[in-house]
């Protein structure tokens, strides 16, 4: 059947519209990316109108990566994204596996407890007081331990573990495995794709840690990248910037704008790296939520 003229017109208009939406989405990122690699003199000469730079330079990146405050913050964020993700994933999977086994006494009460904690959040101050009373203020662990397990992920992962056939487990039991062995040698390898999806969501969460650092970290040597970014990009714009941020962008050799853009690119880079892997899994990760356990 030949496509009608109206249908072809519809297709063209649709492609055009979606291409436009794609461009509008990408443009801010593209502009930031391009300016961050632009020669300082070219940027000043064109007063920021750089869409296709004549030559590329790493000057802004070299400068940032030689700034101790920035380097420090990157190390903190890398620590959070690796160690934090590992711990979160382990404890989430362990708890979800436990409550997915029908032998566990009190599993209904535990699941009720998890659900209730999702529905009702006591608010910033009571949470803050608990972290303070535990002596975690100004410790990097304050950015990991209070967010170690997400209630949603427990519910999703439990429904995933529910679907693992009991026969596999029984076979392992007969071969002399205990629950610990079954968990590590059978359940974890079987759930690799699901763990990848949850791990990547946790990792993005840790990499983007911002507000808890505002609450719990006052020591500038322990802040994660997002705090340094805030001070560079937002506070300096509103001219109330912290001293460290002002120092960081006071260098006259490189325009502060290109430095800011380089900082954005560095902070976005890890996400762009994991994105292709993430993409395969996240639709499934999201859809897990709509599957009733």
């Amino acid at each position, binding site marked *: 059947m030949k496509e009608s003229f109206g*249908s072809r017109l*519809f*297709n063209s208009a*649709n492609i055009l519209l979606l*291409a436009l939406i*794609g461009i*509008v*989405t990408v443009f*801010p*990122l593209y*502009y930031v990316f391009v300016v961050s690699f632009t020669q300082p003199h070219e940027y000043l000469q064109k*007063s920021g*109108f750089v869409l296709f730079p004549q030559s590329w330079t790493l000057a802004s990146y070299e400068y940032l990566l030689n700034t101790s405050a920035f380097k420090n913050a990157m190390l903190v964020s890398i620590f959070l994204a690796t160690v934090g993700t590992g711990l979160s994933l382990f*404890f989430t999977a*362990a*708890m979800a*596996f*436990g409550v997915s*086994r029908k*032998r566990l*006494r009190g599993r209904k009460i*535990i699941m009720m407890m*998890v*659900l209730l*904690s999702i*529905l*009702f*959040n*006591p*608010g*910033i*101050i009571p*949470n803050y*007081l*608990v972290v303070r009373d535990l002596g975690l203020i100004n410790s990097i662990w304050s950015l990991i331990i209070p967010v*170690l*397990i997400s209630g949603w992920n*427990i519910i999703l992962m439990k429904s995933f573990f529910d679907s693992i056939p009991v026969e596999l*487990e029984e076979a392992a*039991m007969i071969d002399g495995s205990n629950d*610990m062995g079954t*968990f590590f040698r059978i359940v974890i390898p079987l759930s690799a794709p699901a763990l990848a999806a949850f791990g990547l969501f946790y990792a993005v969460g840790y*990499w*983007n840690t*911002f*507000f808890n650092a505002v*609450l719990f970290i006052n020591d500038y040597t322990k802040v994660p990248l*997002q705090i340094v*970014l805030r001070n*560079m*990009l*937002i506070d300096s*714009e509103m001219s109330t910037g912290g001293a460290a941020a002002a120092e960081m962008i006071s260098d006259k050799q490189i325009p502060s*704008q290109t430095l*800011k853009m380089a900082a*954005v690119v560095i902070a*976005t880079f890890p*996400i762009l790296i994991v994105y292709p892997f993430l993409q395969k899994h996240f639709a499934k990760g999201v*859809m897990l939520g709509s599957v*009733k356990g």
Partner: protein
Amino acid sequence: MNVRTSVLQSSATAVKKSKSRTLLSDVRRDKYLYMLVIPGVLFFIIFKYIPMWGIIIAFQEYSPYLGVLKSEWVGLDHFIRFFSNPDFTLLFRNTMMISLLNLLFFFPLPIILSLLLNELNNQGFKRVIQSIVYLPHFLSWVIIVGISFLLLSESSGIINKMMMSVGLPKYDFLTNTDTFWGLLVLQNIWKESGWGTIIILAAITAVDPQLYEAAKIDGAGRWGQMWNVTLPAIRSVIIVLLILRLGHIMDVGFEQVFLMNNGAVAKYADVFETYVYRNGIQSGQFSYSTAVGLFKSLVGLILVVMANRFAKRIGEDGVY
């Protein structure tokens, strides 16, 4: 039922142990299972349930030296103070306006975007566009607000430079109260519209292809199929999303508003949580701020429970 359980249970019934004895032996038998669960349970108790208990300082004049139990009880004083404060009306207005503007302008976009994506025949192009529009969801609010500032700044932003080059006057987007809420909604649209399509596209894939064939035979064009087949098919998903959105009407993006707030727009940017942060963490009024936070959480809880019940009543799944 696994092997060990059945063996143990048959012996248990034979001896007729008391209930507590069975519990103890169950725990002993499944000790590794309990070891896996205990850290998680402790986490929920310490970081989710102790804070719930901490709420009682909203009814006290909390003093860090006296602690939660010995601080002086003041009943509902903090709540009365908050409700009679003109700040309350302001916070309520800002929260509602930001939420409602998001509902009006942001909410329909993932649906429209999904419908457009679904009409693409070229799968390669579809995947490219999807990859692009999903991406901003993973960027932090710091980055998104930061990029907005780089683009929109009055002195150095490229948008203002473009406007000037075509003879338009400069416009200070960032400190202008007229456009502040609009800017929040735009950021939200840029960040989350693409991500929102995942669930709707999944619903669209479930539509029976025969329905399209039938519609074609009845003479429906592309618009007709979209309007009469696709849209009715995903109606229930849209309704559930809408109801749940209404349940979360007290939740405006806290980090976003916190980061976008500046002296010039404060009267339009202050919401319950930024107010709690300022009065609690920064000024140390723990009890008063806990009361404000509790008010917000309670209203939120009631709205979510009602929304979920309503979703179930109209024959949908709800979220729990």
